[in-house]
């Protein structure tokens, strides 16, 4: 085969025997990825999207290839500056784009935008001006940013696993950023939507796991997601034992995080700096026993000094009483449940709290 001008582009050579054309067609067949190579969770994600058309969807959730996508700006700049080494330096990316329509489409988008940016003439757009805060930004767009950051953290973790490297710190920081931004969302339903994938992605730090099944004897609590402020009158629910009701009267207007595990309820209140978990109506099998509490996202952000030092194994000081109630100090924090933003941050941290017998 004869060589061709490195900068000539594919259109500038002759191919009388059609050898290159046939070889190129064969290469395309080779590089096309069959849908069967999509993982099951990606297929499930696609199915979820199809039934949630009104939600702002992520563009690249299904077929996002982080290692190639993030090479695009430098590759494009190489082309725009006529770097003769650009195609060789990014040959793997080029081969990838033959079979990946998502990355190729992103390339075309970025190429056009970057070309417009570096063009020497033409009108320059005005700079962004003004002072804006996250509170002035629509909650739906904050939620979308949170979802994107969480999805990005997931891809960082998956890519690190494929490359056999540890990139937990990067993924963790993306999740922390998502958490901090979500705390500015006042509406609980939007906040819930923003963090819908948080627990699933945060548990990927432990490596690939099978879909979590409900373990017998384990009570998985999650927040009921209060609205702005999270203030409510404790004890508004129907069935309570006398002592709980009595304590509830003292706690009127006390900010708290309501938790629920199926029909079971609980809440987290703050006493000074101490966060306390209140559980009621626990199963008879737990009564008279110490319990162990696992705050699955407890180490994701670190504003809480957990009792015993490990948020995944907080042992109750007392045993569950005869009525199935228990109060467990979880740890100390400088955050205040009375501050809406800090309360939202704590609520996100308690997105999954598991209770089991400690013995």
């Amino acid at each position, binding site marked *: *085969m004869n060589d061709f001008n490195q900068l000539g582009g*594919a259109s500038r050579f002759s191919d009388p025997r059609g*050898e*290159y054309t046939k*070889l190129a*067609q064969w*290469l*395309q*067949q080779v590089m096309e990825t069959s849908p069967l190579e999509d993982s099951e969770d990606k297929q499930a994600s696609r199915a979820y999207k199809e039934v949630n058309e009104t939600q*702002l969807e992520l*563009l*690249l959730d299904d077929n996002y290839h*982080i290692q*190639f996508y*993030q090479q*695009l*700006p*430098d590759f494009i700049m190489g*082309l725009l500056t*006529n770097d003769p080494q650009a*195609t*060789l*330096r990014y*040959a793997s990316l*080029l*081969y*990838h*784009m*033959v*079979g990946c*329509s998502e990355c190729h489409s992103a390339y*075309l988008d970025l*190429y*056009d*935008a*970057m*070309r*417009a*940016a570096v*063009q*020497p*003439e033409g*009108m*320059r757009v005005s*700079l*962004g*001006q*003004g*002072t*804006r805060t996250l509170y*002035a*930004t629509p909650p*739906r*767009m904050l939620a*979308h940013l949170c979802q*994107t*950051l969480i999805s*990005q953290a997931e891809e960082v973790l998956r890519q690190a696993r494929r490359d056999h490297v540890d990139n937990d710190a990067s993924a963790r920081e*993306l999740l922390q*950023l998502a958490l901090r931004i979500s705390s500015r969302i006042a509406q609980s339903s939007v906040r819930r939507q923003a963090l819908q994938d948080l627990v699933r992605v945060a548990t990927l730090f432990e490596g690939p796991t099978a879909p979590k099944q409900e373990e017998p004897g384990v009570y998985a609590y999650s927040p009921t997601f209060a609205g702005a402020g999270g203030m409510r009158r404790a004890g508004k629910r129907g069935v309570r034992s006398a002592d709980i009701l009595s304590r509830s009267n003292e706690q009127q207007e006390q900010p708290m995080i309501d938790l629920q595990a199926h029909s079971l309820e609980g809440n987290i209140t703050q006493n000074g700096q101490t966060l306390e978990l209140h559980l009621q109506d626990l199963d008879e099998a737990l009564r008279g026993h110490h319990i162990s509490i696992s705050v699955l996202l407890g180490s994701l952000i670190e504003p809480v000094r957990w009792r015993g030092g490990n948020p995944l194994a907080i042992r109750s000081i007392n045993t569950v009483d005869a009525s199935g109630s228990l109060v467990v100090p979880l740890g100390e924090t400088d955050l205040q449940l009375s501050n809406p933003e800090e309360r939202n941050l704590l609520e996100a941290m308690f997105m999954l709290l598991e209770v089991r017998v400690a013995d």
Partner: protein
Amino acid sequence: MPFTARDLRYNAEQSYPLLYAYLHRNAQRYLGALKYDAFEVDTVIGHVVEQLVRLGLLGGDDRTSLTALDRLTDAQFYTFLSRSVRNKSIDRLRKRRLQVSTAAELESMESDEGEDHPLEDAVESVWGTTPFSTPEEISLHLVSQRNLRDLLKHCIKALGAAPNQLQAVIEELREIGADDLLKDVGEELHVSVSSPGPVNPHISQHKDHAHKKLRNCLQQQSTNLTVMIALRLTEYKNVSSQELSSQKVSSDMKLYTVDIQTLAQKDLSEDEVRKGLNGLVTEGLLDWHGEDVVQLTTTQMKRLTRFYKEEE
């Protein structure tokens, strides 16, 4: 205060509202008839925001490498954002089947604002307007450029460990008449490629496995580094006797030496060069044990040259 790419990278929480406001203004500008549709406006903004996160810019901090986007001037970066919004807006308009009227709207609007022909007003690179605009164009370029085709050759050669899969690919290449490529592979692996082999009843299965392996190999950065280093080892032999010293060891054997810095040039790190060299060691093309200077015998150089660099 306007925001910058640096702000988005290092102060995402503070600069996101400013980014949002800027994108919002542009989305309304480009969405034409849909500019009061809050969902459409947010969708356009969301796509650009997602792009910035995925690229490792928004909220990337020092966790991701700086890219060409970080090196744009502020004005260039704003143009980049504005153009991205414009492209996403056109996508949405097309999706809502409003493209006919809005394309005209877009043009007239942009003309009013000073951009005479925004779609044609591009940097004229040697690649033309938009290089690699289709997968067909990319694949044609990959197989027609010697250096890029070398990756394909390299990966086909790697199939040598699975003879049935290699044979399946050889049969395919023979059918399409890729004779020169076949000849190179055949010589390197000492296999016959001239005539069809006996029909293998599981050929289809072997072909599928071979394609999967080729896909993986061709997309590996390590493959690219191995081929790049192989090429540089062969190229520097011819380039300069100062950069590549050769000394007479015996009457029939020269010893070529190239240092790692020379192989790195300006665009590769020392670590990348070492990865590439390790790839060649794994293939048995080189004896190298991590030294700063790579040594090759005449035989090794000939073998590299034969496979990775066609005779001039």
